[in-house]
């Protein structure tokens, strides 16, 4: 079976600067892959290349074995690749339920429809209710999103991705900016993700990385510096020197 998401010799340079360097990755169903590395290692760039937010300089991106290197973000989304953002990007004029509804409307390709109709309403509302339950925000459905605490906003950001029922989910620092006291809410939600989903997440907090990841990919200067199971990476002296050592500062 081909990988859900794969990159082959993926590279990106801005001018003379190589921010992504010959990255080969394969994500399969059920994978929990943590992408770690020092600041500027090219983690977010890699997510942007995979999701189609940035054009690649060379190399390939494949979803389910099909080349999508030159496809738009929206086409990749329809193929089951969904991402979240490091800085929350929600529709600021809307309530929690409406934001999830926007996602559900796109999922059911109803964005140009002028009528709700009973069948479509049912489909969309079922998705909205499912995710509200997943992220445990039923009581916040009618809150304007701008009035939520940041931790809750991060949860909605994750919820938007969950509405889409992706096959591969790219999470860019899902708990970034969330106070320690609230971060368990996000982590609990991530823990409940469907087991067949392929998940790639960028994270700085090593406790979280070791709690969730089965495999760790260490990026340094745009290239894959090391890859392995959590135990292997934890025991890797080079990684400790380059990355974990710095993180302890």
């Amino acid at each position, binding site marked *: 079976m081909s990988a859900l998401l794969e990159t082959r010799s993926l590279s990106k340079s801005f001018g003379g600067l190589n921010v992504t360097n010959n990255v080969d990755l394969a994500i399969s169903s059920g994978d929990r892959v943590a992408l770690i590395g020092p600041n500027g290692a090219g983690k977010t760039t890699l997510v942007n290349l995979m999701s189609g937010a940035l054009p690649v300089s060379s190399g390939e991106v494949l979803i389910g074995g099909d080349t999508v290197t030159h496809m738009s973000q929206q086409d990749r989304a329809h193929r089951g690749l969904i991402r979240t953002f490091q800085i929350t*990007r929600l529709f600021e004029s809307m309530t929690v339920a409406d934001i999830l509804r*926007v996602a559900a409307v796109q999922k059911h390709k109803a964005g*140009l429809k002028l009528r709700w109709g009973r069948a479509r309403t049912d489909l969309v509302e079922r998705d909205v209710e499912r995710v509200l339950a997943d992220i445990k925000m039923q009581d916040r459905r009618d809150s304007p999103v701008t009035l939520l605490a940041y931790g809750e906003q991060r949860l909605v950001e994750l919820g*938007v991705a969950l509405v*889409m029922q992706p096959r591969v989910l790219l999470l860019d620092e899902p708990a970034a900016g969330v106070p320690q006291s609230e971060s368990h809410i996000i982590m609990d939600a991530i823990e409940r993700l469907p087991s067949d989903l392929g998940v790639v997440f960028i994270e700085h907090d090593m406790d979280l990385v070791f709690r969730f990841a089965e495999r760790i990919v260490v990026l340094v200067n745009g290239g894959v510096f090391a890859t392995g199971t959590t135990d292997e990476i934890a025991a890797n002296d080079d990684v400790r020197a380059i990355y974990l050592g710095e993180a302890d500062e």
Partner: protein
Amino acid sequence: MTNLHRSIGAAAVIPLAAVALALIFPNQQAFLAQIAITALVVLSLDLVVGFAGLATLGHAAMYGAGAYGAALYALHVWAEPLTGLIVGGLAGATIAFLSALMLMRSHGLTFLMMTVAITQILYEIVNKSRAVTGGDDGLYGIVMKPLLGVFEFDFYGRLAFWYAAVVLWLVFLLLRHIVASPFGLTVRAVRDDGDRVATLGGNIFGHRVALYTLSGAIAGLAGALSAQTVQVVGLHSLSVTFSADILVMLVMGGAGRLWGGLLGALVFMMIHHYAAEIDPVRWMLFVGAILVAIVLFLPKGLFGGLEALVNRLRGRAPA
């Protein structure tokens, strides 16, 4: 109040306001017709500016296309009003669709400049095509057949007012429906963060083109109403000045809310009418001063201010 009550209440506002205005200003029906037509074009502008978040100074292109389209149709083909109305709507939609194919790839200032450029080009084409459009003399001598074959257009503008008010009402009801539809929801999401919608698989370009075309069709209807009721079409209907006027009305009333467009058109036209009577030369000063006050004190426009006031009186927190 249930949602049903709310919608019935909202649907009744325009007919009630029309009757009230007709009673208060019995001898000014032609002016009232102008208000209804202007409200219609401001409503269409609100789709682009308020709901899609695209600032434009080129909305007159579609209004003018509708006006000239309906005028030419009445003069050369058939002077029947309702088919003429459809022709005007189609003319506005066509111009909107064609320009949207270019416009909707650009953003911000580029977009704004392109809307101005397209309107100027259209203005010059119409200006130079004297044989067809009358150039800067415009088109006149438009005499419409009775509406529905029964109601004659009268000198006092009585029919004109009711005709325009009914079209405005129907379009308003349609837009209320569309704004709440999956399409309307997506358009607002694209306004807030288009790229985010793309990452969810939404087609931003398609949404913007569809919305602009819809807005153009409604602006075209307004233009057609103007041509049929005023019986004259001039270059002003295609000008950037007119585009700016309706933008001012929208901002005064409150962009992003359908009521805002209606209220803005009503208030602006009233001020214009009475201020120009008092001082025909400097009336724009009044409008300018009022606009400055609104932008400073009521950032959500008159309707936003009104809503905040009502909420406060009811002791509720603002939404």
